[in-house]
């Protein structure tokens, strides 16, 4: 938001705080402009969306109770109403040993994740990317359709201010390319989805994305069932990233505090093989979770969650830092401005201190490569139990053999991670998660009759 609006809101809030004798307050202002374009079968525009949102979220501390509300209207009256709703909500809330934290310098510039070239990038370039994506897909006559090749850009500015003197502003750009490829042969058909995200427009690589998605569609077209049993298997980067995304919840201090994390008592213990490190990295170049400061204005810092296989730290915001006598790790996030900030990972990076395998399929030698999961949202983040649909292909003697379908994979996420035998030398960034492909031992697979 422009500086006049920010100043006006800061002034109004401090007046309201005096008037209602509160112990502290915080405002989070965001202004987001989002554009997305998708093409149809004839490369014409199929849909064009343009969305604008201005929002204010307010937290108020009264009687050591932390109230919250929000408004989509930046006027003084709307701000006052939101402030009062936040005050009213404190009536049903518990007391916390909480106070708003003061200013500390950021580790990254306010515009580090802002690509100013987008201001002068003509629409033709964006359409050009989509056309390049379609060109890259049509590598085989079995590929019959590219569904919703789409481009998305989000330009946002955020201001955080509080009664302890924090006043921070930043701008961020986020870009995305996505598509689905449909392949058909005889009676078999298949749809494969992929995407790419970045903070800089120039990083988007339509050719790589389209070609990769098409190749995978062909590799997994049709196929046979696998016999029910236990297999060594490779997870592609996409599949590995989906499992890592679920794991992140177990590191959140609120889950630990509420005893809904299986890692609650495991800090300092081995949870992964010794060669593996997982880092929460809010400063990752082109990570869609990258921010110079978090949703409370705390500076962004890199930290290992799992350091050489050992659980190293949990993720904190100011509230849970005060409840658990710790310090914030700068992991306050706001998935929606209509809800209070919560704890979340920024970008997760899985790395190994061993040189990865040049060819993980060769290392697997005989077994399934899992390329797609179905029902990932059903994985129980508390227990880590999962049972999912899967697709992929079989490798025999180290090379591609045949597509696989109608299989299920099952197990426990924490057991699974202990069974990472090797990593590939093929680290890939999927939005907020960067990982190589993983070789897992003894994965339970149900398919055809045992």
């Amino acid at each position: 938001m422009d500086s006049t609006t920010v100043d006006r809101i800061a002034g109004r809030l401090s007046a309201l705080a005096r008037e209602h004798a509160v112990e502290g307050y915080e405002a989070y202002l965001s202004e987001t402009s989002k554009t997305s374009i998708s093409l149809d079968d004839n490369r014409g525009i199929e849909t064009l969306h343009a969305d604008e949102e201005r929002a204010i979220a307010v937290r108020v501390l009264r009687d050591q109770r932390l109230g919250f509300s929000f408004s989509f209207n930046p006027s003084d009256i709307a701000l006052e109403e939101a402030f009062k709703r936040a005050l009213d909500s404190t009536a049903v809330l518990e007391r916390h040993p909480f106070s708003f934290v003061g200013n500390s310098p950021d580790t990254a510039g306010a515009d580090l994740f802002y690509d100013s070239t987008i201001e002068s990038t003509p629409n033709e370039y964006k359409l050009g990317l989509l056309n390049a994506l379609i060109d890259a897909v049509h590598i085989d006559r079995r590929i019959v359709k590219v569904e919703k090749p789409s481009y998305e850009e989000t330009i946002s500015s955020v201001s955080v201010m509080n009664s302890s003197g924090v006043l921070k502003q930043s701008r961020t750009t986020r870009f995305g390319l996505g598509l689905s490829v449909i392949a058909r042969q005889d009676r078999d058909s298949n749809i494969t989805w992929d995407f790419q995200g970045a903070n800089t427009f120039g990083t988007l690589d339509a050719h790589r994305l389209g070609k990769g998605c098409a190749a995978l569609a062909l590799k997994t077209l049709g196929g046979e069932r696998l016999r029910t049993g236990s297999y060594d298997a490779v997870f592609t980067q996409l599949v590995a990233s989906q499992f890592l995304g679920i794991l992140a919840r177990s590191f959140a201090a609120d889950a630990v505090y509420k005893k809904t994390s299986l890692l609650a008592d495991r800090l300092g213990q081995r949870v992964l093989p010794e060669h593996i490190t997982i880092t929460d990295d809010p400063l990752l170049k082109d990570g869609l979770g990258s921010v110079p400061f978090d949703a409370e204005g705390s500076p962004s810092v890199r930290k290992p969650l799992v350091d050489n296989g050992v659980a190293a730290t949990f993720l904190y915001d100011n509230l849970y830092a005060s409840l658990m006598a710790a310090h914030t790790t700068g992991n306050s996030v706001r998935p929606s401005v209509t809800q209070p900030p919560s704890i979340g990972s920024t970008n997760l990076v899985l790395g190994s201190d061993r040189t990865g395998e040049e060819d993980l399929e060769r290392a697997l030698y005989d077994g399934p490569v899992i390329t797609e999961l179905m029902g990932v949202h059903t994985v129980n983040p508390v227990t880590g139990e999962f049972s999912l649909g899967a697709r992929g292909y079989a490798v025999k003697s180290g090379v591609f053999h045949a597509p696989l379908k109608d299989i299920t994979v099952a197990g426990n996420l924490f057991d699974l991670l202990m069974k990472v035998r090797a990593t590939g030398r093929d680290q890939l960034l999927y939005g907020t998660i960067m990982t190589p492909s993983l070789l897992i031992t003894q994965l339970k697979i149900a398919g055809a009759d045992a």
Partner: protein
Amino acid sequence: MNYGGINIEGILEDALRNGAEFAELFFEETTFTNIRVESHRVDRAVTGTDRGVGLRLFSGGVVYYASTTDCTHDGVRALLKKLCAYLGQAGNEVRVVLQNPSRASTRVVKHPFGVGMARKADILMSSQSEAYKRVDQIVQVQGAYSDSSRRIAVFSSSGTAVEDEQVRTTMTFNVVLEKQGRLYTGYESIGGTIGMELFNNEDHLKAVMTAVGRAIKMSNSIPIEGGPMTVVLSSEAGGTMIHEAVGHGLEADHIYKDLSVYTGKLGEQVASPLISVVDDPTMPGMRGSFGYDDEGTAAARTMAIENGVLKNYLFDLKQAGDNGMRPTANGRRESFRFPPIPRMTNTLILSGRDDPASIIAEVDAGLLVFKMGGGEVNTVTGDFVFEITEGHLIEHGKTGPPVEGAIMLGNGPAVLREIDRVGSDMGYGIGTCGKDNQGVPVADGQPTLRIPRIVVGGKK
């Protein structure tokens, strides 16, 4: 017409003048309360209003959509200006005349607006303490209350002018137990297009105890070996199967883009003659119900499959218009931030004639599903999965021990053809369905069903 200081006809006429063939304004104001309790305390209590407007234009086959949180005349004008910059064709002078809007609203006995936050929090807290009292090993009871009053108004260049108020109240519980160093969870939810009368019969207490019961069963469950087996889906299990196996595949956008296994099959036998499927947003109190859909089409029941024959798809205005069909009141959107797309509402398999108890009794060895969780479908192949959150072995026609969390994986058309028993009972489940990054409230229902052979994922 003047709506909130905005000259509606003026905006729509301007859009047509600039090259749109169809123009629509969608206003939305959703006032909600969310309360969450955890660890014997109120963890979160939020009330507020989400408000905005969306402008949709059709021109030369393209859908243009813009939204803003600025609901003033200037805000809406800015949307129009932004979209018109993209329109490539010359427009027409058309006079748009709108009548006063037709109105509908959810019939509620006790509107949530009339009840204070403290009372709502109290219902949650008392349910939570009830659960803690009953069982020792509970480490956490997460309870969530939410109500919303969603007021929408739709105006379009084809003369649509409607307003609808949809009131929804929901309560969910997630119970976490610890046993020998392992955690187990149990979940239950209640809710619908209903007000605070949802709590008149202490259904919230029954719900939390159901969640506790599920967590206990999970802690006593045994892993099973996966693979193909006979499965009976109890009517209590909810309707995730019908939602994934057939519902998504009937949505007209998938159909006409040739992304569904049901494309081109109208009039054909696509399921066993025992199977009839309806989508019905008119059912009072159900979570997927409304007066008008998000394009202003009045709610109506759609017979999609009748005795196994495919009768109709689920249409929004765009797909109906492009394909010479009638809209079926399935044009829905999560909020003003999204364009409407074809979505399910309350989707059901109608009851059959078999006695539910004897359906189970006839199975020598198999799986009995008492509760289904979330699912997903690949509409292109028809392959679907859904989670079994409470399942038991069937041993010689009797209900056996509970099994560890598993999934079922099948193919929609294949399963619908193979179902060989349809019970005379009926049960419902509620949920939020996700598609194209939009979530909408839905309900699903089905009688007790038997699938002779389907792949179950197991952990043994």
